[in-house]
């Protein structure tokens, strides 16, 4: 029994240590973010941030679009099969529009970015640790957080909300295609209904979630990379942990945000 308490205590302390490190890393990154900004910062960091935006955002675009289209079809078809029974097929439009703007757009994007970029951050920084490149940066009087992490974070803060909006658009488009083929509702009319069903607060809620997800994915991925000790097997482990932890934390954060928005919306 004592052994069980020991394990629970050790695991709790380990998790607290993890979150403590992540908060310190977040604070260090925010302090170094100014150096990654255009015009006022270091142009090399800004160039690195733009490069990261291409990798996180543009390269993920086809995958996110396809994921959103498929999910849009699924949501519309599942919704229609139930709502049809009550003669409320037109509510599929609200379901898809609101669902993708507030929820599925940011969430699907976060899962895709976590798998693509979160793992890439962990692998890149982990390899840099193993090959002593991080130590080389330090002895060259560079701050590894500012040099490596700040451009990635800035890029994620811009790319992930943009991707979320694109995912929302493709998901809603898929709903429109479904409505066109099932009820012959024209796409122009469909998008008018969509615009009528969503309000600015839905878009803002989606953007706030996207920013939080970008923060989680970047910092979990980079922290897993910085924590690497040992050889290539440790890099593989950190990559896996980056995806597992960031996906889990994204879903938890989504639940918290949704709860907050639900009660704020009711009030």
């Amino acid at each position, binding site marked *: 029994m004592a052994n069980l308490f020991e394990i629970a205590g050790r695991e709790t302390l380990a998790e607290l240590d993890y979150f403590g490190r992540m908060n310190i890393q977040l604070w260090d990154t925010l302090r170094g973010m100014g150096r990654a900004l255009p015009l006022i910062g*270091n142009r090399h960091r800004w160039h690195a941030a733009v490069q990261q935006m291409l990798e996180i955002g543009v390269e993920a675009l086809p995958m996110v679009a396809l994921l959103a289209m498929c999910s849009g079809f699924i949501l519309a078809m599942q919704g229609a099969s139930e709502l049809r029974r009550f003669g409320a097929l037109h509510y599929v439009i609200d379901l898809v529009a609101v669902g993708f703007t507030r929820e599925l757009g940011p969430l699907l994007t976060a899962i895709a970015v976590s798998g693509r970029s979160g793992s890439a951050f962990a692998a890149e920084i982990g390899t840099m640790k193993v*090959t*002593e*490149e991080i130590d*080389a940066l*330090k002895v*060259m*009087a*560079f701050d590894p957080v500012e040099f490596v992490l700040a451009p990635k974070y800035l890029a994620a803060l811009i790319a992930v909300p943009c991707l979320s909006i694109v995912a929302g658009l493709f998901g809603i488009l898929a709903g429109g295609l479904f409505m066109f083929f099932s009820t012959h509702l024209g796409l122009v009319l469909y998008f008018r209904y969509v615009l009528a069903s969503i309000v600015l607060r839905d878009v803002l809620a989606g953007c706030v979630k996207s920013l939080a997800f970008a923060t989680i994915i970047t910092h979990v991925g980079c922290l897993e990379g910085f924590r690497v000790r040992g050889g290539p097997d440790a890099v593989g482990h950190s990559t896996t942990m980056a995806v597992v932890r960031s996906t889990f934390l994204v879903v938890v954060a989504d639940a918290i945000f949704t709860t907050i928005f639900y009660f704020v919306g009711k009030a």
Partner: protein
Amino acid sequence: MSLISVRDLVVEYDGRRVLDGFNLDIEAGEVTVLLGGSGSGKSTLLRQILGLERPKSGRIYVKGTDITRCSGAELKKIRRSIGVAFQSAALFNSLSLEDNVALTLREHTALTSSVIDLIVWMKLAVVGLANFGKLHPQELSGGMKKRAAVARAPALDPEILVLDEPSAGLDPIVAAELDELILFLKEAFQITALVVTHELPSAFRIADRIAMLFNGSLLAVGTKDEIRADQHPRVRQFLNRVPDNPVHTPALACYLERYVQTREAKS
């Protein structure tokens, strides 16, 4: 006053003592070679002098500043006066050789790109890599990587040059060229060099002073002649290349004979 002064340094990893009350002075303008067997604490000492790790106790003064107690900004300032070539080369794999050498020049100086290009070409030419500047580290042989690391280390014309096993894995001609380069840098720029090496001919060619480590302590320190004349058994063993546990041939033969007999009995 010594340029680098190590006082009563104690370093432990998970309770295992790696450096035990270590003292060493490195004088300005001298080439000091650290000799010692594997696990004697040479690389640990280098990491401490570079401020990459914190000791359990003791002090390290670099240019009069205690780097075990100084602020991050002070440490950065000191690091700008130190050039380091790591044992694993630690070149940035995402950058070409030219960019590896140019990185500190671009970030820490206001030199124009044409001047930086010229300096980079000169640094690479010194180690025979002038025609390989466009290649990335993964396209180079192990020896070429080492030479590139040695070219990168003095990019900012530092006061102190730290080289961790620079000639390990190099052919004798390139290793000899590297020795001459270190001597040239010392003569031309009064550079202070701290070199870790296992290569005895190289050590005795370049050293002004040799410090020999054993089990985390300083065994002997002195000029080349003083070390050659030292009668400490461990120093003699190291210089005469006498193995610690010589293979006991009769015992091995006896063991093999018993093994064969057992196998025959079983079959």
